[in-house]
């Protein structure tokens, strides 16, 4: 209990609770995880909302992200500066979306952003290419990658504009029943 009082004010904790899918305990646990990542950077007192950013290199070395082929994108999408450097808020945000409780639409929205490498709000063939290369560690030939991308767009592009919009993506997710369980990072 003593720790709680020193790290966050009750109001802060309540706000975090309302804005994430976590309980007090989990928020504190996440905070300590965050603090452990960069003990010299992150103060143990968040009462005054210090603006501390943990660099991407540290974030990506977390065991939860270390081997994820999309770790860079995840960090970029959830960090406010877009470079993967995260504040505590971003960190909580990330794990909140990736938690079990987050609804399908929220997850789908962020999944879309993660797969949208060039941030143009469409998953275009280039994005798909990068996704496929990350998925297969470059084991497919460029020709095969091209075929896969073509097929994906053929399958999921409802309005035939040659790229996937968020709606296309969500529509596709509706047909993938295990998306909810796979878009999930356990902490």
């Amino acid at each position, binding site marked *: 209990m003593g720790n709680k009082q020193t790290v966050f004010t009750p109001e802060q904790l309540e706000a975090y609770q*309302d*804005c994430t899918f976590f309980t007090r305990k989990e928020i504190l646990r996440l905070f300590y995880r965050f603090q452990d990542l960069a003990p010299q950077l992150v103060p143990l007192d968040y009462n005054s909302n210090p603006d501390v950013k943990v660099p991407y290199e540290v974030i990506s070395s977390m065991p939860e992200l270390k081997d994820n082929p*999309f770790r860079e994108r995840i960090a970029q999408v959830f960090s*406010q500066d877009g470079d993967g450097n995260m504040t505590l808020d971003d960190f909580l945000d990330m794990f909140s979306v990736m938690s079990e409780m987050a609804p399908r*639409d929220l997850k789908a929205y962020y999944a879309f952003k993660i797969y949208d490498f060039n941030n143009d709000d469409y998953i275009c063939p280039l994005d798909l290419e990068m996704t496929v290369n990350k998925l297969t560690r470059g084991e497919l030939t460029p020709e095969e990658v091209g075929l*896969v991308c073509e097929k994906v767009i053929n399958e999921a592009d409802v309005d035939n504009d040659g790229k996937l919009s968020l*709606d296309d993506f969500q529509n*596709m*997710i509706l047909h993938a029943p295990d998306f909810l369980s796979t878009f999930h990072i356990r902490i």
Partner: protein
Amino acid sequence: MTAFYRNQGYEEDPDYPDFSRVNLNSQNNPDYPYSRKNSSNLKSKNNAKYSSTYNDPDYPDALNHPDYAGTKDYLDNPGFRNHQEYPGSHINPAFSRSQKNPDYSGPGNSSHHLRARHNPDLGFLVIPDYPGTENYQDSRESPDDPDPRNNAYRSSSKNYHMGAKDYLSSRNNLDSLKTRNNQSYPGSLEMPDYPGAEDNLSAPDNWRDTYNQVTQDNHGISYADNPEMGRGALQSHPTFHQGSRSPERRNQDYPESFQMTSRKPSSLYSEHPVPYSDDSGYKEKLIASLINLTPSEGIKIIRNQPLTMQEKRKIRKKVNMERRKSDSTVPLNCCTQCMNAMSLHFRHFKNIMSEFFQSLHVWQRTLKIIGSKFGTSVLSYFNFLTWLLKFNIFSFLVNFSFIIIPQLTESKPNTLSFTDLEVMTSPHLPPPLIFVYIFSSVVPIHLTAPSSSILMEMNWVYCFCFHSMACSFRNNFINPHIYSRGTAKLVFSWDFTITHEKAVKLKQRNLTTELKENLSEIRHENVIAPLKQRLSHLAIHLAAWIVSTGVAIASCAAVYWLAFHNMKFLKQHKNEAATLLLPFVVCCINLFVPLFYSSFGLVEKFEIPRHQILVIITRNIFLKISIIGILCYYWLNSVAVSHEECWETLIGQDIYRLLIMNFLFSLFDSIFGEFLRRIIGTTLIKSLGVPEFDIARNVLELIYTQTLLWIGIFFSPLLPLIHMITLFIMFYMKRVSLLMNCQPPSKAWRASQMMTLFIFLLFFPSFTGVLCVLAITVWRLKPSPHCGPFQGLPSIIHAIYGWIEILSNRPSYLWVVWIYRNLIGSVHFFFILTLIVLIITYLYWQIIEGRKIMIKLLHEQIINEGKDKMFLVEKLLKLQESQKKPSSYVLTQERREQEGLEAQDLKDFNLSISISPV
């Protein structure tokens, strides 16, 4: 309810001109709607776009005003009051008129209005900058104008009324100011004659209609009308233009905002509550709608917003503030608090339970390794195996609790047990078989228990099988489109839960394999062989079919001949070892003939790998089912009528021997067959290579044993226990053999529908055949006279008749008798039942046909709309490039096109709504 409120949130301000303009620009600006990162750039981008589009240097302030174009900054301003920065709004003399509106004036509209009255001078400062023409008075005075908004805010809190009204009025005032002080456009001053007046009136009406529609049809059925609504409001533009020489501003304002209102809800109802996070207005509306909700609902909505934590906190803070202001009198309901706490606990409990259940999936890891190393096709075999294992555990539990336990508790000293001991000691009959004898020594009083429980179990099996088959059919075969969505699902199916380096690599390899499977199908679709080649292929297929059928018939004849001669031989010699001859021969046939079949693969070439597996499965199932058929014929027609002492026991023994022998053979097959094959392939004949895992053969092995087991259950109720053990051993053995000896299938094929096929096979030839055999046993055959629960009856079904007779003498059980006579035993009842089922089936069939057509049409329509959209966007871009200076004609053109775009967007959404549930 939530959706309704959110919808309202979207509806609440039709008057966001810049907002809508921003949105318009975003049609060309792909960065716009969802990127959080770019939000800070948005302002400048949109503004830049705007000025380039409209080339309007006279209106810089209105357009570049951070409060409208900005997105993030908007929240930073204290709510609606930021319109104080438009001082013009406060000095409008017409403003007081709006105060007459009873909804409008109130104790809450505080600082804004006060300041409006107290600072009358400020407004004139901005006059030259706002030369837009706006018939302010008309819109304010018209009784229709405020009303729809009041409608919209009906359920809002009073406080919000104020804020929103302030905002609206400030907009209108602002616009009217421009009108009034714009001396260079004299036409705009002639308001009573102004043709746009009616149009302006009609706009709110339209808007209200739209709103009503949206609220009434919360499920997005009638959205198709909305674009027309938007258009209705827009049709006024030409006249508006004629009436005034500078109508752009107002024109831009209304139409898009109406389209916004009609479009956004539709996107909501298509189950995409993801907002346009960069819309400053969206947040306003969100806050406004949140105030009306209970705290827990509000929190839920805030949580579900794809906004950054800071924004969420700001919204939350603001909502809390407004809420405290609005209803500080209402205390927090302790009941809701209690509910909240309970739901929290329930959530925790669910989390714990789900983790617990996940830990119960023992073989998950093994299966994942197998899947990533060997692809989904091999994985489907193991999935099927585990599925069967679970099934047999269930079957065993039912048998144990309904047959064995009653017998163990009530069985009397068994006279036959001594002879059984002899059987036990004999080398080829292991101990579990004693249960066959226990079963057969039940006293006749309880005779109905075993038969009815077996029938019940069969019923359960039937339901279970049918249900799982239907489910997997639904999952794998019924697609809304002609194509499957396999690849797309694969590409976006990365499992973020995986954290181990090794597992990640396995998963990546697995995905690579699966993608290759997908690709191999595409490639085969593209190639069409020449005619001659096709003819030769056809001839080879035909020959293979003839040979395989011939072999199957020959082996059936062999089994038949052997079985009958074996029986005679056994009668004469009583040699125990001879009983093993028949199972041995049958297992040999089962082992070697499929090997022979799979050697056809060297000659027969299939274009699609999946066809190969289907053909092999068909041939093997034909062989195995016909052998089982012959055996059943032998059992029912010769063993059962041979007047042996206990023919049920004989059949049970036979089946038991067959099962054990089969298990030994498959052990032998995987240990020696695959192992030797690997040794030969890697050391002696290198060209052969490491063997591939033959899925078809292995799966059919499983189906075959399961069929035998089902037949055997009736004669020996503890067979599931034995089968359970053998399956358990099989799993580990096959796993080891697979990982040690085999290589991933060189031809990767998609196996997503394999499981369905296996279950179907299990259901159709196998289970249905078993039911037929059992039906013959129960209705036709005379049970053995001296052993078993049915001794002395003319046929087994007479046990039921006798039971009903006994029950009909007891008045308290008369309802059972009634049910039996009128429902189960009645032909009429079954006739009516069948008729009803047929009618329902026909109806559903018709509905499905209709939906198929519908889906096809809608899909075509979506594609066409997409094409239209692309075309219009292109045209729009061209126009924007070609037009350097503003011209009302061009702008009108643009307007129309943008309107069209919006309408199409809406239609697209509607289509996606109607498609997604299918």
